[in-house]
Each structure stands twice: as structure tokens, then as C-alpha cells.
């Protein structure tokens, strides 16, 4: 799998990126790439600089050193139009007076143009996206009345409505129950396989990343590993990323740190 990925064109490339804040490095000498049609998982503990990394890719934070290329361009307004972003914590207020469909429609605003209201065609696109995330029957409901998991699906539909080539997802499983999480990863894999969508997905949950990503980057201020998911659970890498006291709670065929028999074995 990894070989075929490495033949695909590079859509995101970070080269020797350094980001400092208040005299401390938050990201140090980051070399990272994401290829077309892959799901790249970014793992690391809290405060490892994962969210900062996504913002650097989007050009929301300018690095102190190094270069960032998003679709071969400097990340700015133009390059960002090809990307869909799902922030960790949405700043959106619960009581905001919009329906689920209204939120998804925001995703097509950039293509609607100035002075124009979204018309029938835009509404059809938005409805398609709602079907895509299994939320069509909630289209007319007030956004604030939906559960955390449902709101997140709406945010994903909104991000997809802008027809991005790349999705940047910051902790997409926060506040979503495990069934909804599993559905979401299936959806993501389908979008990758059918539409060639790439995704960069940040999580502190190693189990989630290793079982759903094509490649993984383990980050704790520096990149400690960047490659296929099968090798990232090695004790040396895990210790570097998460520290000595880590206990790995996932047991699957890739689990390298325990002697238990696995169901798949």
C-alpha cells in the first residue's frame, strides 16, 4: 500500500518548518508530506503541536522558518479553496439561528460569488452532502438542537460541500460516540476510494489512527516517525512521542508491545 501511495503526487509538503511561541518551539524542524488520495494520520500527545501543524498547512499560522506548500502553492486564499477544514472545537455557537442545511450551504458560499444568494443548484449540492453524511432527514432542524455527533457530521458535510481535494480534520472523534466514530471513518475511506479525496487527520488516539490511516506521522514537537501505520507502534517510537509511562490500550494485529494473543492471530 505504502509504495503505491508514494507514487502519487505530493499535495502538502512541509520542509524544515519551525514555529515558536513565547520563546518556545512548538514545532521543530518538521519535514512532512501528504500525497493525493491518502489518509494521513497525525498522532501525538496533548501539546505536541498537532493543531498548530494543521494551521500551518492552511496558512493560518506563518512558520518562523521553513517552507510550506499546499497544492504546490504558498498556503493562502487561493490554495485554501481546495481544502476543507474541521477545527477541533467549533467556535460556532449552539444557539446560532440556522438550520443544518443553512450550515452546509455555507460551504458553497465561496463558489456562489458576491451579491448572490445560494440558489436551487447550491441547495441540491448541500442536500447531496447531507445524504453523504446520513443526515438528510435533519436538514430542516435547528443546528443547535442536534447532538454533538450530528453537529460534527453537519460540519463535515459543510467542509465537503466546497468540493475540496483535501480535508483537514482536527480530532474528529471528540464528542462523538464510538458507533458514530466508526461510521465516520467508513465514510472517510469511501470518499477516498470513490472521489480520490485526501485527508490529514489529527488525533491523540493511536488506535483510531493506526487502524484508519494509510500513513502515520508521530509528532511531539518534532516528527518521530513518518511512514506506514504498521511500524509506528514500536516501543522506541511510542516512548519518544508519548514518554515512558505510556500504556498502549489497543490490541490488534499491529500491537507490538504486548504478548497477548490477538483475535486476528
Amino acid at each position, binding site marked *: 500500500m505504502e509504495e503505491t501511495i508514494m507514487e502519487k503526487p505530493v499535495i502538502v509538503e512541509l520542509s524544515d518548518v519551525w514555529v515558536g511561541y513565547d520563546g518556545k518551539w512548538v514545532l521543530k524542524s518538521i519535514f512532512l508530506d501528504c500525497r493525493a488520495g491518502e489518509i494521513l494520520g497525525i498522532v501525538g500527545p496533548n501539546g505536541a503541536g498537532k493543531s498548530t501543524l494543521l494551521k500551518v498547512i*492552511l496558512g*493560518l499560522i506563518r512558520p518562523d522558518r521553513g517552507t510550506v506548500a499546499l497544492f504546490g502553492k504558498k498556503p493562502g*486564499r487561493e490554495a*485554501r*479553496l481546495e*481544502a*476543507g*477544514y474541521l*477545527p477541533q472545537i*467549533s*467556535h*460556532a*455557537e449552539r*444557539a*446560532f*439561528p*440556522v*438550520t443544518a442545511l*443553512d*450550515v452546509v450551504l*455555507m*460551504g458553497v*458560499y*465561496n463558489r*456562489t460569488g*458576491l*451579491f448572490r*444568494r*445560494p440558489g436551487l443548484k447550491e441547495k441540491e449540492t448541500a442536500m447531496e452532502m447531507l445524504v453523504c453524511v446520513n443526515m438528510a432527514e435533519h436538514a430542516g432542524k*435547528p443546528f*443547535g*438542537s442536534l447532538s454533538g455527533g450530528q453537529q460534527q457530521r453537519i*460540519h463535515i458535510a*459543510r467542509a465537503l460541500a*466546497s468540493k475540496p481535494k483535501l480535508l483537514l480534520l482536527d480530532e474528529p472523534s471528540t464528542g462523538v460516540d464510538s458507533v458514530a466514530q466508526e461510521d465516520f471513518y467508513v465514510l472517510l475511506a469511501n470518499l477516498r476510494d470513490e472521489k480520490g479525496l485526501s485527508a490529514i487527520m489529527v488525533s491523540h488516539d493511536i488506535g483510531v489512527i493506526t487502524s484508519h490511516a494509510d500513513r502515520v506521522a508521530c509528532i511531539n514537537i518534532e516528527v518521530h516517525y513518518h511512514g506506514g501505520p504498521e511500524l509506528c507502534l514500536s516501543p522506541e517510537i511510542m516512548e519518544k512521542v508519548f514518554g515512558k509511562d505510556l500504556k498502549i490500550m489497543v490490541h490488534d494485529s499491529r500491537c507490538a508491545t504486548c504478548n497477548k494473543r490477538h483475535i486476528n492471530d
Partner: protein
Amino acid sequence: MIEMLEFEFMKNAFLAGIVLGVVLAVVSFFVVLRRYSFIGVGVAHSAFGGVALGSLIGISPTLTALFFAVIVANAIGYVGRQERLSTDTAIGIFFALAMALGVIFIGLSDKYNTDLFGYLFGNILAITGTDLLLVSILGAVVIFSCYIFFKELLFTAFDSEVALVSGMPVVFLDHFFLTILAVSIVISIKIVGIVLVSALLVIPGAAASQVTVRYVPMIAISIAVALISTTGGLIISYYADLASGATIVTFASLIFFFMVGAGKLRKR
């Protein structure tokens, strides 16, 4: 009521009240969603510095107030965006600075002919035909601006970070709205006053948000609340011989409390 409108100043005030009702309602919709009510208070008070400067150098205080309010509103937006400062801090500084300049300008002025109390709390007797024309033109500009940038302003208010990633010119929209806010405040000063105008930047939108969760009805209800407040307040103030600005704001607050109650009943 017909008798009330026989007076030229009452007719001007009434017409201005209708225009301002619509303007403040539309602006308050975004003020409530963006949580800008304290910015409204700060910008309104900064107009005091402008009024005092106008009376010192002998040009229209409305013009200088407009100048002050637009600059302070945009300065609050700019400073609030800086990494080590917050909007809250920016308001605290510019609010006081503009008021302080106002006090200095009054001290420098040897004449004492400007009705400062009228600017602070509103004075409908001071509304001339020219004022009415100015309110109508600037009010139309504000409403037209909100109309053409509606979807962009809505998205930015919903989630500015995501809006930025989606290609919305968020910084431009923030300053654009702050300018609209400043203009709306200044044209309302003669009727409700510097100290009281911020209430009308919040109440219509906040009252409407109590009874609906969709934006089209929210704007419609917001307009209804503002129109009832300004026209009703003016009628009450005329017949009960009360200060117009204070009556409008008190009446608007009563409507707000009524709407909060109605919202609670509706949820049951």
C-alpha cells in the same frame, strides 16, 4: 397621534425613528450573533469626543462624531486582532481615551453653547430636516450593505476561522461591519443619545432570539421590536412629557422582558 405630528420636530423625530428602527434592528441581529454589544457601548461613547471636537472647532458635531466613531470602531477591531491583546482591552482603552479627549475639548472651548446633555441622552427637538435626510441616506447605505454582504457576514459570525479557510475575506468583513456599526450609532445619537444607544444595538436582536431559531424570522421580529420601541417610545414620551431616548430604551427593555417570558412559555 395626528396632533403630535403637527409639530415639525415631532414629524422629523417620528420619521427618523422609523428609519432607525429598521437600521438598528438589522445591525443588532449581527451585534447579538457576534457578541459585539460591548463594542457598541465603546464606539457610542467615543462619539462624545467627536461631538466635543465639532463644537470646539465650529463644524457639525455629527460629522466629527462620525469621524471619531468610525476610527475608534476600526481601531478596536485592529487592536483586538493582535496576538497579545484582546478586543475587551481595546474597548477599555479607546472608550476612555475618546471620552477623555471630549472632556479636554470642552475645557478648551470658551463658549458653552452646545447642548452636550442632548447628545448624551438624546434630544428630539434638535432633529432638523437636514438630520432626517442624513439619517435616511446613511440608514439606506447601512441596510443595503448588510443586504449585499449578508451571507458573508452570516458565515463570519457563525465561525470566523472556518469562514477564513473557506475563502471569506474575514478581516475585511470585520472592519466593514465595525464601520456600519459606527455609522448606525452616530445617526441614532440625536434621538436616543450616546449613553443609551447601545441598548438599541442589543435589545431587538436579543428579544427576537428568544422566540425563534431561524435567521429570517429573527430579523423580521428584530425589526418589529425596534419599530415598536422607537415609535411607541416617541408617542409615550410625547403624551407623558418624558425624555424621548430614555422612554424608547425603557419601552424596548419591557418588550425584551416580555419576549424572554414568551420564549420560556413557548419552550414548555
